[in-house]
């Protein structure tokens, strides 16, 4: 089974924990440096993707554009900053969900089962990925409020919990030039990580900064170009379980989601400690 199929099984197990939205970040088909892979979202079901593709190709050079439900992925022959500012000028109705060398982010409001089928997760292969099912507590049920959130090139964040100081922090981050699309608390955490990483912090230092600067409950999982990281707040009300075999490492809110993976019965399992950053990197093959 392809990675997307495993992630789909995991999402379906936790669909009752988060029935209002679902999302997936998957890392695959790394593009050569100098190129950028961009995932776009359109709220218009009749979006003319051919027109977007032609304009991108004429503007900066673009590979084939692959449409997947309300999203499309395209590789452009320029850097991410040039591509995203060009897109926001020419196609302001499109949302850039992710940009980088390997990342693709797909997310929508609606039942996780519908998401899994509509985006045909089972057909996606890849090296690693993060999925999320949402039960909104702090902001509207919309595509923009769904997880994962992009936190910069090839980076994304999923969150279980709720932040209580996100309004003030959002204003502080806006003053630093970070842009926000919603009133969602997790988007603020994502913006915080984006800001810390932009200022030169390592991923580990940026996550440790959350312990100081974020007030509220959280279990975070962060996707990176070659791995992922996990952080729980010091109170650790929000669950997390880790499992590792010789073949794979997985993290989920609870064991039900891990039980569907091959060899789960014999996996080494533990709960990540509160206030501690865990990270994994794939060995170069």
């Amino acid at each position, binding site marked *: 089974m392809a990675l997307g199929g495993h992630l789909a099984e995991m999402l379906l197990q936790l669909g009752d924990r988060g029935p209002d939205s679902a999302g997936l970040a998957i890392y695959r088909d790394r593009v050569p440096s100098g190129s950028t892979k961009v995932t776009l979202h359109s709220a218009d079901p009749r979006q003319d993707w051919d027109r977007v593709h032609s304009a991108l190709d004429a503007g900066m050079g673009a590979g084939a554009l692959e449409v997947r439900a309300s999203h499309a992925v395209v590789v452009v022959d320029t850097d991410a900053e040039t591509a995203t500012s060009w897109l926001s000028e020419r196609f302001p109705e499109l949302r850039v969900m992710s940009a980088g060398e390997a990342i693709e982010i797909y997310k929508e409001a609606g039942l996780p089962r519908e998401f899994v089928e509509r985006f045909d997760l089972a057909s996606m292969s890849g090296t690693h990925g993060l999925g999320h099912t949402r039960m909104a507590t702090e902001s509207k049920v919309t595509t923009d409020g769904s997880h994962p959130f992009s936190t910069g090139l090839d980076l994304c964040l999923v969150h279980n919990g709720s932040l209580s100081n996100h309004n003030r922090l959002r204003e502080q981050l806006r003053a630093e030039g970070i842009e926000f699309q919603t009133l969602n608390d997790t988007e603020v955490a994502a913006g915080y990580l984006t800001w810390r990483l932009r200022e030169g912090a390592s991923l580990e230092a940026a996550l440790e900064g959350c312990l100081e600067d974020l007030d509220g409950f959280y279990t975070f999982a962060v996707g990176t170009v070659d791995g992922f990281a996990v952080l729980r707040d010091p109170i650790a009300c929000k*669950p997390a379980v880790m499992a590792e075999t010789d073949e794979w490492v997985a993290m989920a809110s609870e064991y039900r989601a891990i*039980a569907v993976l091959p060899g789960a019965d014999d996996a080494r399992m533990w709960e990540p400690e509160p206030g501690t950053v865990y990270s994994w990197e794939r060995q170069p093959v």
Partner: protein
Amino acid sequence: MAMVESAPAVIEVDLAVTPLRELNAALHRVSGDDRGSWRVLNPRGAHAVAVGVDAPLEIDVEGHVGYYCAGMNKQATVRVHGNAGVGLAENMMSGTVVVEGNASQSAGATGRGGLLVVRGSAAARCGISMKGVDIVVHGSVGHMSAFMAQKGCLVVCGDAGEALGDSIYESHLYVRGSVAGLGADCIEKEMGEHHVAELSDLLERAEAGFEASEFRRYGSARTLYNFDVDNAGAY
């Protein structure tokens, strides 16, 4: 329901084919003095396995369970051959619950009686608001264990995390290893003869191979029983 009788009269229920509600309904239907043996296969992290049993059954669960396993247990002996999720044996009343692996947070929460044994470690808030249950953890417990504990014993053969026994009323806490920190109004207390006897009995029943003399006892300083403005910071 797909139940297979196998000698000697062990009732097997495979959760891969039988819905969980059917299992629990069948466990609730037995008479209050039924001493039968049950075996539950393929729990695969399911929530609320063997909850609300009120008969002296022997129930073996073969695998990892999800949240609230053996909650409200009365009389039964429930043995989980794996790990347990959040809220293991929550509000158990009597009987015995044994987990061979680790337990997630809030194991034994609000328990009123019986014995809970975790042969691995338990995460945060083990024994939170315990009201008479005895809990023996062969490994360590996480932060805020025995928070607002009212009655019963918490025995930790490994280490205890931060804020052990915060705002404790009257439980006996025994820890063999280190304590990362005591919560508000929790202090170390002397180990009397009746404490040694109580702890030795629990260690034996929980098959924990340690001596009572290796443990230290913690309990309530009783300074938060009545409001005193000098203690306002501790509430």
